[in-house]
């Protein structure tokens, strides 16, 4: 892509690592919607065989962070971050990989993609998956065919992953507008970028897990039987024989 212009809007996702329960529903609904959507099909090779492998736009990892009481298990959805500095776009030799000026969404034109896979090498986040059957690269479209779709009810005009999340851990909006709900959420909760050191300036933000509850006070020690009198003292003496 050439003649790059800063997009007017910066549509993206805010993912709450505090509330994500790791159910994979967002990944499943993403696959379901997108296998009939803009970049359809999300090809599966050997789908019912021993070496099933296919294209997904959203993958849910689970990590452990920290040790002992301070440690946490964190479910971690991973998808395209629609970066402001998308190297996947600038390395593309044909211009098939592009970032939209009007909303910042990064897309692939399947008619001009030559399948060289260089964009997937340039993406630090592993957001792009090659469709070996069609010979072109595929990636998250931010459900471009839902968010502007006037044939579905307005409440459903959000990405499939957002609409399906049972824990309300995924939020969609304009991160270029400081007054938007998603921008406020990022400001309130300290939303952050993944691998900021590489300078891709991702649009999507992650909300950190809230600090854990303070460790519970130590359990009271075993009651001491010494010095008991009366009935309990008699029981203690009997049991101690």
């Amino acid at each position: 892509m050439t003649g790059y212009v800063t997009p007017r809007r910066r549509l993206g996702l805010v993912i709450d690592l505090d509330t994500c329960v790791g159910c994979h529903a967002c990944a499943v609904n993403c696959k379901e919607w997108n296998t009939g959507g803009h970049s359809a099909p999300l090809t599966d090779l050997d789908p019912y065989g021993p070496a099933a492998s296919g294209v997904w736009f959203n993958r849910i990892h689970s990590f452990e962070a920290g040790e002992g009481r301070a440690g946490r298990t964190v479910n971690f959805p991973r998808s395209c971050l629609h970066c402001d500095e998308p190297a996947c776009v600038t390395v593309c030799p044909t211009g098939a990989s592009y970032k939209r000026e009007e909303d910042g969404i990064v897309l692939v034109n399947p008619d001009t993609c030559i399948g060289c896979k260089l964009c997937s090498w340039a993406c630090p986040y592993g957001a792009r998956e090659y469709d070996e059957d069609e010979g072109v690269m595929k990636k998250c479209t931010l459900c471009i065919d839902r968010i502007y779709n006037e044939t579905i009810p307005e409440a459903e005009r959000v990405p499939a992953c957002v609409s399906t999340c049972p824990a309300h851990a995924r939020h969609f909006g304009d991160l270029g507008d400081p007054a938007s709900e998603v921008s406020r959420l990022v400001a309130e909760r300290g939303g952050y970028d993944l691998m900021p050191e590489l300078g891709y300036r991702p649009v999507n933000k992650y909300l950190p897990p809230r600090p854990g509850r303070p460790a519970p006070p130590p359990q009271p020690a075993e009651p001491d039987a010494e010095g008991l009198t009366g009935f309990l003292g008699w029981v203690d003496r009997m049991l101690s024989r």
Partner: protein
Amino acid sequence: MHPALSVIVFTVASGAGYGLLATLALLAALGTIAPSLPLGLAGFGLALALVTGGLLSSTLHLGHPERAWRAFSQWRTSWLSREGVAAVATYLPAGLLALLFTFFAPGRATLAILGLLTAAGAVATVLCTAMIYRSLKPIHAWCNQWTVPGYLALGAATGLALAFAVLAAFGVPAAGPVGIAAIAALAAAWWVKRAYWSFLDTVPAASTPESATGLGRIGKVRLLDPPHTGANYLAREMGFRIARKHATKLRAIAMVAGVVLPAALVAVALATTQPLASLAAWLAALLALAGALVERWLFFAEAKHTTMLYYGAASA
């Protein structure tokens, strides 16, 4: 990174081809070699065959090779596109030079202009190839100061070794200086690759599992559950791993077979007469190419991608 055979063959063949092409073009420009049918056919023919074979090999890993022509359009931002443009642009002076050198006897000025243009195009194309890798920030083993010198040095070493073999076979007086240049280029390749591997072994990547997830604020991060139990494109393309003990052995093989032995054989060829000289020179060139193939395989196999930080890799 997965070491794709088509890309390894492409980078080694085109590197050697452009090295040979640049050497012959410069010698022609200087008037050190005179136009001749057999030398033109063998020398320029071999150079253009290696370059063309390499470029064709590179299209084998494309999902849509029939659309490869589209890759010439994005030269303003893409090093891959620039490489394509540079390669095609180099064919013009190189083809003309090869044609005139082989079948006609052009004047000194024509040879000088075409020779310099061809040599510049050859160097520019190898530079673009190297920059494709040098510019990829997620791959620490490529995005560093040693990638470009490595590609240029190996292209020069293999190209000069081939040029020496061709010139020695024809008994051209220019073979002597070219042989000495080949030894110098092999020594440079040795030094650059040693520095590159020392860099890989001592300088860690900036990205870590902690920065990839942003969970470093809690503590050390490790993968508990992967997102899927089977393989996927990312694991196949970026999850290639090589045991450290194999890497150490292969580094030694690449250096001994690809640099030390060829340099010694070039020295033997310089000190002996035909037919031993020719035999040693060709053996040197073939060994240098074989060593470059091992080196290029390692360049991919040892490279780690930040995506694997999400799949349990402890470092990138």
